[in-house]
């Protein structure tokens, strides 16, 4: 009976573990389906990005930001966020509001929230300004 050399057995074991890890990494990925030609007409705005954490920016990406008005004169912001990784990731985000005079508006809804995204998932986060004086916003992300 011919025995398999130990080095080959070791390599086989490493390969098997790699396959298991790779498969489990993909297990939480999200497949999504949508209308081929979207009927929605979002008011997408141009945004400025200040990146100080490249690792974070490589994990979660803001695809687009669109805005609308609700309850007559309150600004609503919605950001489409994508997980660039193949595994579930959690990040914290916060919206801040700025008034016409450039002053930050202390708002009750300026809270850090935890966002959990499955692998390669795209989702939206949104907020509504609680003051009609809010004209600008800032969206922050942190690990």
């Amino acid at each position, binding site marked *: 009976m011919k025995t398999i050399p130990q080095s080959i057995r070791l390599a086989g074991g490493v390969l098997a573990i790699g396959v298991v890890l790779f498969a489990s990494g993909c297990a939480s990925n999200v497949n999504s389906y949508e209308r081929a030609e979207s009927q929605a007409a979002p008011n997408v705005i141009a945004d400025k990005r200040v990146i100080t954490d490249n690792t974070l920016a490589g994990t979660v990406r803001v695809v687009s930001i669109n805005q609308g008005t*609700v309850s007559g004169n*309150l600004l*609503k912001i919605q950001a489409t966020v994508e997980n660039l990784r193949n595994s579930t990731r959690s990040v914290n985000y916060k919206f801040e509001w700025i008034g016409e005079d450039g002053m930050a508006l202390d708002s*009750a*809804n300026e*809270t*850090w929230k935890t966002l959990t995204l499955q692998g390669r998932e795209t989702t939206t986060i*949104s907020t509504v300004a*609680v*003051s009609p004086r809010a004209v600008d916003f800032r969206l922050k992300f942190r690990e």
Partner: protein
Amino acid sequence: MKHTVTSRLLGLLAVGAMLTFSGCETATETRTVDAKGPQAINTSAINSQDWANAADQLLNSLLSSNALNNAPHTPAILAVDRVINNTQLMVDTDLLIKKIRVALTNTGKIAITNTMGLGERAVVASEAAELDEMQSGKKAKILVPDYTLYAKLIQQTDKNGKIAQNTYSFQMSLVAVKTGLTVWEEEKQIAKQTKGAGAIGW
């Protein structure tokens, strides 16, 4: 020679004992953190960040629904109705309601009456109105609310082996007084899983 080894051993023991006892004497360290931030201690209960998030989500839903656009006048008068706490937690429901009140008042679309509704604020405001009536001899004009706000907190606990999950539901309804119709309703949930017997979530 033997004496030297013994003294060295004793010295080591003394150092070990000192390190052990100094470990027990660690000074209490307190730091200020953002109550609405991720540094807030996470427990199986509702923490400060959860209250803020629940209030934020409910507010976003109410304002996005445009329900206040049909108010008979601006600002619309709102009375805060009962807040029922059906959780196992002894919590002050103002942790939720106050955040909603502040935010709604800031929008300029709502003015909250204190002469109706429950709670100490309503009692004081009612007594003040009565006193004013007695002193002026004129019937105090009390504004009838356009809307009432009703809220309920519910807790559901599920267990699977060593994992316990507490799901907290924050339900809120806005009712138009004249019609009795609910013009806005929302339910937001926060689920927290705790592994093991400890109370700290992860």
